């Protein structure tokens, strides 16, 4: 008595409710509403406040510049609020 959802059945999942996939597999960026953060790298002083405060680790720092990973950014706007240099703006998708 099971549907054909393509999901694993009870004999196929590990014991005890252990996660068998990384949370990265779920692209939670599609939860985002109307606004998304956009970085103006000309204004950015690489203080990394946004990187520290992002609750979803969606701000990337590659060693030279900041960027946003829209696969996981939920558009909360904390990075815009915390940026001391107005280098991040929330803009309509």
């Amino acid at each position, binding site marked *: 008595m099971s549907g054909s959802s393509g*999901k*694993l*059945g*009870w004999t196929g*999942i*590990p*014991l*005890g*409710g*252990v*996660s*068998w*996939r*990384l949370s990265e597999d779920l692209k939670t960026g599609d939860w985002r509403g109307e606004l998304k953060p956009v970085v103006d790298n000309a204004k950015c002083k690489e203080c990394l406040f946004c990187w520290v405060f992002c609750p979803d680790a969606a701000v990337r720092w590659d060693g030279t510049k900041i960027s946003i990973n829209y696969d996981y950014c939920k558009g909360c706007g904390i990075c815009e609020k915390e940026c001391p240099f107005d280098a991040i703006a929330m803009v309509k998708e």
Partner: protein
Amino acid sequence: MSLQPKVEGLNGDEAIAYALKQCNVDLVAAYPITPQTIIVEKFSEYVANGEVDTEFVTVESEHSAMSACIGGAAVGGRIFTATASAGLALMHEMNYVAASHRLPIVMAVVNRALSGPINIHADHSDSMGERDASWIQLFSENPQEVYDNMIQAFRVGEAPTVQLPCMVLLDGFVVSHTLQDVAVLSDDVVKGFVGRRGLPLINVMGQTVPYKLDVEHPLTMGPLALYDYYFEHKRQQEEAMMNAKEVIVKVHDEYAQLTGRRVGDGLIHPYRMEDAEMALICMGSTAGTTRTVVNELREKGVRAGLVKVRTFRPFPAREILDAVAGVKALGVLDRSGAYGAVGGPLFNEVRSTLYDCADRPFVVDYVYGLGGRDMPPTLIREVYDDLARVVKTGAVQQTLNFVGVR
């Protein structure tokens, strides 16, 4: 194997502590509550005297006790706790977590009535509250069975196909505080029997790793599982419970080879059931009194029998069906109420089981012994008299009865 038996004078609680000392547990986290207190008092003496190297965690509540046990078991330890009544009720939430995380913690539950009115004496209302928590439940009739069940409990819960927590149950005061000669095994024999806790291997992201929290092989225990996967996890628990039946029988057999002691097949213990016309089913200390009454009745030519249920979870339906074949009237002794239900919890399981029986006996429920009310042989004789009337008249006057209430 023949072994020189060593006998110790132990009450039920001390028998738990003694067995625990021999089982080489890594961690005990417990909070004292009557009538369980002797267990942790006695065991903390073993710890203080350096007779065991167990980590003893004193906690602020039973909820915390079970939480600490879950943590200890999650990193691969062999874990024990003990409680009773209100303490077990306070653990309720974490008991489900322990079972769903598939952690084979062993817990002694000294059966005591739930409040209110507040009461410290024996009945099964506390553990019946956990009957659907996916814990194995082994009932004990006397301190000897307490000792034997404790040693088997670790093996049962830790079996690769089971991986479920296990309760050892004993009636408050009647068993917990009653001294008996208990035949004990040597430390080495117990150590050999229980072995070390083995960990099942699980497959996570292409790697086969032992099921434990380990920085070398990180994994997440206890994540959210909503309508898409929760159901599958619960289905796994049902499978584990079904597997436990076979394991309980096997471990019981292996233990009987060492000791010569048996409790039926490890699931139920039928007594003088071969040609029984009427029989009682019960759990815990009352089985001993009932056996005495059966013997008296048999001397008078009355074909009376008894089925003692040792394993309440998983419920031994098939075994009960076989044991009561041919019986005309079956009485169920329930040491807990189920207010507003069709009858007590044991009655419900037994009567439901008998639906599959072509030639069903009459089944009558006798709720008894609530809050430690005594169940002497005279009352048990009255119950058999009532069953005799059912056999004679071919009708049940009253399905739900209260024995010993004014």
